[in-house]
């Protein structure tokens, strides 16, 4: 079934000739998933089906205390300064965005009265503006009303370069914000914005109160007392915060959703390590929820046996992958290794790349190392489902690798290592120090040895490998080896930002102090064009096709070898109810709806 057939079907749904349910059944019959069908309907503007929560309690409060555990402790409570997810999550207890992202990447209104769409006319057809109608009767924790002025202020606050807000990437594309009335704002973009929910939605979209921050914009941003004592609109009011240790909140009796929240108090304790956090939820039941369980699946399964809690696994966009250098890391040009003026002597041969691609035993990596927390994949984009390519598949086949290399003229030498024209198939394969990664390196190395490729394994402390230190050649953007492996994160349900790591103008180099987002230094005009087209393409179906194309280009050219995509894992007490996690938003995206069995 091609694009045209799908469009005909969608059209029939639109005219009422085909029921939504029937459409979903047909799609599922074709081997696609139900959420994907819902996605198509939604993106074709046919259903703004909003996720429904089951919510057991019928009244506000009375739930006692909910205790949550983050093994990385939150250090600050201003969402625009968040160093990482821990800070975004802690801020989310008190602050809220206009819209949140549900597990399928759909927008759920929070401070907005409704979700803008092409259908209700709030998203302009040309993609140049979007109108948000704000929920009325929302008050800040100090009693002041939440209005359009707050939304406008957040944009101004973030855009002031002296503020150095880390969220600025989401707001830069706005050229102005018009306040239409006290509860309506119109965002006007510089160019068509298919992903118009980037500002003001999800973890980077939280809104801070104008009346508390207006005197602390720019250079004085650090001095705002509200940085440490947040005043938001969220389900819990601020009680206490000790940076690096604990955040406490109490029920917000004037919360804007009726009968919510359930708990009287909330505690978010930080610090320690992931395994003991898992124990505190799964084994002793001391805590109700724990974040980011980077614990081997085998251990999680064993602890789940106790029946006190379970590991909650939701798919997101994180992908553990191996990158293949397109430039020569062993020749220095103008004081720069892996310079774009060079070509990799061996990896330019597509046969070598193809051979490596079939030598990565993703199945074993999943089975032996990651279990439920890492799923073997052939794709770079693995979610949301509408962007996932169906044209690729992975295999592990040593014989095939040998055939490919034989055919390309790479002959085994006396030492068993293949060579051609005096160049040997010897690579240095680097990654950060992390037990699962070292095990993966071993699996790949053993398979490569069988095909006459010699891998030298290198592991670098995570502190160095992931740092932005421009003087250190061992960071991943410097990529001073032939192969490297790490997880890259797709934090939004839209792959535009995520896919910029293959565009030619993002190549990491000495000129941009290795801050470029493209470490493989792969440059491809076709890819660049597709990326640029997707940036302004307003037709959701065409745009999805562009991302599928970009994914396929990367996979077919073996720019990277995806290994496993890594879902998000939390630990939840079995007594907790209605804790729904989304891979596209913070763990507290639906905090107001959490409850507990008494």
């Amino acid at each position, binding site marked *: 079934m091609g694009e045209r057939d799908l469009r005909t079907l969608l059209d029939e749904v639109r005219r009422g000739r085909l029921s939504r349910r029937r459409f979903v059944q047909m799609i599922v019959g074709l081997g696609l998933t139900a959420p994907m069908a819902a996605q198509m309907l939604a993106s074709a503007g046919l259903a703004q089906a909003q996720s429904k929560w089951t919510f057991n309690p019928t009244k506000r409060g009375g739930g006692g205390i909910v205790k949550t*555990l983050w093994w990385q*402790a939150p*250090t*600050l409570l201003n969402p625009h*300064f968040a*160093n*990482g997810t821990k800070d975004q999550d802690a801020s989310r207890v008190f602050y809220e965005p206009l819209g949140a992202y549900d597990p399928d990447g759909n927008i759920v209104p929070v401070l907005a009265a409704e979700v803008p769409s092409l259908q209700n006319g709030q998203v302009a057809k040309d993609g140049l503006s979007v109108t948000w109608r704000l929920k009325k009767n929302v008050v800040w924790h100090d009693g002041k009303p939440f209005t359009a002025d707050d939304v406008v202020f957040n944009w101004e606050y973030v855009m002031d*370069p002296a503020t*150095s*807000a*880390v*969220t*600025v*990437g*989401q707001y*830069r594309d706005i050229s102005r914000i018009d306040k239409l009335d006290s509860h309506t704002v119109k965002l006007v973009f510089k160019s068509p914005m298919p992903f118009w929910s980037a500002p003001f939605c999800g973890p*980077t979209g939280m809104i801070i109160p104008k009346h508390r921050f207006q005197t602390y914009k720019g250079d004085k941003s*650090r001095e705002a007392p509200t*940085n*440490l004592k947040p005043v938001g609109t969220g389900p819990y009011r601020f009680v*206490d915060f*000790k*940076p*690096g*240790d*604990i955040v*406490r909140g109490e029920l917000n009796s004037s919360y804007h959703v009726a009968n919510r929240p359930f708990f009287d*108090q909330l*505690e978010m*304790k930080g*610090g*320690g*390590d992931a395994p*003991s956090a898992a*124990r*505190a939820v799964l*084994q*002793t039941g*001391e805590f109700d929820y724990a974040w980011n369980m980077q614990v081997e699946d085998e251990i999680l399964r064993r602890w789940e046996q106790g029946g006190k809690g379970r590991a909650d696994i939701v798919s997101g966009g994180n992908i553990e992958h191996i990158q293949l250098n397109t430039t020569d890391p062993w020749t220095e040009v103008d004081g720069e290794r892996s310079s774009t003026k060079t070509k990799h002597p061996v990896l330019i041969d597509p046969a070598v790349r193809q051979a490596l691609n079939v030598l990565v035993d993703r199945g074993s990596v999943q089975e032996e190392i990651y279990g439920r927390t890492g799923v073997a994949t052939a794709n770079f984009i693995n979610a949301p489902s509408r962007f996932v390519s169906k044209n690729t598949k992975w295999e592990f086949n040593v014989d095939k690798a040998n055939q490919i290399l034989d055919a390309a003229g790479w002959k085994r030498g006396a030492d068993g290592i293949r060579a051609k024209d005096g160049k040997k198939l010897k690579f240095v394969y680097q990654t950060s120090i992390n037990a699962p990664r070292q095990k993966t390196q071993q699996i790949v190395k053993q398979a490569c040895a069988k095909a006459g490729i010699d891998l030298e394994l290198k592991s670098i*402390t995570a*502190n*160095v490998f*992931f*740092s*932005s*230190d421009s003087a250190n050649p061992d960071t991943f953007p410097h990529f001073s080896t032939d192969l490297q492996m790490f997880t*890259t*994160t*797709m*934090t*939004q349900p839209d792959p535009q*930002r*995520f896919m*910029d*790591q293959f565009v030619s103008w993002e190549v990491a180099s000495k000129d*941009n*102090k290795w*801050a*470029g*987002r493209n470490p493989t230094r792969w440059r491809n005009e076709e890819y660049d064009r597709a990326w640029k087209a997707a940036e302004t393409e307003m037709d959701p179906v065409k745009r999805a096709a562009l991302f599928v194309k970009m994914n396929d280009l990367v996979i077919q050219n073996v720019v990277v070898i995806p290994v496993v995509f890594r879902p998000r894992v939390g630990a939840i007490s079995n007594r907790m109810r209605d804790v729904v996690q989304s891979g596209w938003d913070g763990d507290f995206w639906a905090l107001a709806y959490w409850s507990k069995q008494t």
Partner: protein
Amino acid sequence: MPKYLLRRTLISIPVLAGISAVLFTILALAPGDPFEELATNPNVPAEVRMNLRAKFGLDDPLPVRYARWVVAMARGDWGFSFVSRVDVDTLILQRLPATLAVLGSALLLAILIAIPIGTYSALRPYSIFDQAATTLAFIGFSLPTFFTGLLFILLFSIHLDWLPFIYRADISATGWRWYWEHVRQAIMPVAVLGLFQAASMTRFMRAAVLDVVRLDYVNTARAKGLSEGTTLVKHVVRNALIPVVTLVALQIPNIFGGAIVTEQIFRVPGIGSLLIASILANDTPVVMAVTFIFSCLVVVSNLAADLLYGWLDPRISYR
């Protein structure tokens, strides 16, 4: 004595200056970056990171940064954390109560165990009691705190389910319950630290008492008819305490070192866990302040040990 104190204080100034210079250089040379997490996040433009680095003075040459730190420190300004953007002194003051409560109790526990057991062992050397105490002491100081800590958690929290293993400084209960909750959660970290110190201290105490108890003046005290209790407390233990006091005084900064591990295991929001978190986050101002406090403590506790000698043993004089 005041002259001695003044001289020792003056000597410690260049010592501390040297320590701070070495610390600062090592921290600056260590790889890493406080804005590392921003670097790997695709949604944060590189300019933001560069801007923050410039704003916090991270791009300046090392001598400039050090000079700035020294000047600010001399004015009593400890700077602010890059990670939480909170003033460093506020951060440290927030962490101090938990550290003092846990470490103070641990030291007290160690003294309360070590002195009576050590003394009794020495008075009856090679008795069954002494053998048992010696064995336990050897086991005690050969087991590192990270091991006993985990062992305690497995036994008391997971298998027996008696004690919580996550320390919470904010307990919302009031009255007796508040005290009870605090005691309950402090039992394991205090026991881990306290028993570790008690082990070596017991051995010191035993050796010291053994030395003293054979001396002539003890026999004299007994011969002139003093009761066994008085002899023991006034003549034996007091003199035997001299080496133990040195040990305790020198251990005060060491407890902070040991506490890094223990605090991390039990999530005690103390200075040790602040230090380790700051090191991992490359938060130089906080690491600098905490390590500098550690070095001050070493210097001060050495001085305190020397002064306490004089009080315990008036024959020692200061020049």
